[in-house]
């Protein structure tokens, strides 16, 4: 009975989706909004990567809200997993004892080699967000993957939560201050033209976008690291 109901629901959704696929015809040209974005981002903002231009200037307010959501999740996960944590989750582990056995040689050596490389790669992704594929969110996620590798490799490794929360708050405050600076020196909140646009495609170009990208990367990296640390048994 139950199974037939599930099959029926999935089949009906499948029908709807199939009609979507059949009716879908690929666009031959850009929509007017997309076309103006593709033209305006390089001309007005001086950023070769159109998507970064949209994320960090035209829709930067949205990005700010999203970082706030991430912060809220880090706090919420801490709230759900914290507090009575000490009694209920730590004590059974002490009884069994062997549940926190050290990770294998391969993971430990791999972490030692990979973590510096991951950090450099994250810095590269964050700093090149306005020139090629990359940006703050992606780089922040790569930083957090390095932290995850460290946590996996060593049971003794403790994430410094105080340092992370201070760095994260500082990055957030600076992000908002940069936005307010855009309000004063340029056209509006988080407008990147408060700084000179520079030469198109150069490392220091596209106004405030690289600065916003770095702040975003640091903030996202810290928040994801905190979330990872909360899940440590």
């Amino acid at each position, binding site marked *: 009975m139950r199974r037939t109901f599930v099959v029926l629901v*999935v089949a009906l959704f499948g029908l709807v989706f199939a009609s979507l696929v059949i009716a879908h015809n690929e666009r*031959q040209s850009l929509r007017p909004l997309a076309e103006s974005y593709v033209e305006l981002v390089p001309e007005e903002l001086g950023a070769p990567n159109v*998507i970064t231009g*949209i994320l960090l200037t035209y829709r930067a307010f949205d*990005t700010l809200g999203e970082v706030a*959501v991430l912060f809220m999740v880090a706090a919420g996960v801490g709230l*759900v997993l914290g507090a009575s944590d000490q009694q209920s989750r730590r004590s059974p582990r002490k009884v069994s004892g062997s549940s926190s056995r050290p990770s294998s040689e391969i993971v430990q050596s791999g972490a030692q080699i990979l973590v510096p490389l991951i950090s450099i790669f994250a810095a590269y992704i964050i700093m090149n967000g306005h020139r090629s594929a990359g940006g703050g969110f992606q780089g922040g996620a790569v930083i957090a993957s390095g932290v995850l590798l460290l946590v996996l490799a060593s049971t003794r490794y403790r994430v410094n939560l105080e340092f992370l929360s201070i760095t994260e708050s500082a990055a957030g405050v600076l992000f908002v201050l940069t936005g307010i600076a855009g309000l004063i020196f340029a056209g509006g909140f988080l407008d990147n033209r408060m700084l000179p646009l520079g030469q198109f495609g150069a490392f220091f170009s596209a106004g405030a976008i690289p600065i916003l990208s770095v702040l975003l990367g640091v903030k996202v990296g810290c928040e994801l690291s905190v979330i990872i640390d909360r899940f440590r048994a």
Partner: protein
Amino acid sequence: MSNVVLATGLVLILIGLWGMLTHRNILRIIIAFSLIGTGTHIVIVAIGYVTNGTAPILDRALTLSEAPSRAVDPIPSALVVTAIVIGLAVTAVMLAYAIRLYESKKTLSIDAFTESKW
């Protein structure tokens, strides 16, 4: 070409839906939820594709003058970056609740949690 990608995303959504409705383990339900999310991202990106388009990043391969005719729609890509981050946030909260639920009943089967059943 984008039809294939669109179909893949929609099939992923169907698999996730099926997994959510048939499995009783909370972790499997969370995995199915993530599958639905991933399928949705693929669908959004597929909708933004323009025939013979390339990534909207200007460089030697894509000059400023030919960008409006050869770039794909940048808006779905920007939205998907947003959606991936929110998806991660939702998954993290769900996993945290799963840990708490396991602590209260010592099982991850959703059949054990009958308090909120009507």
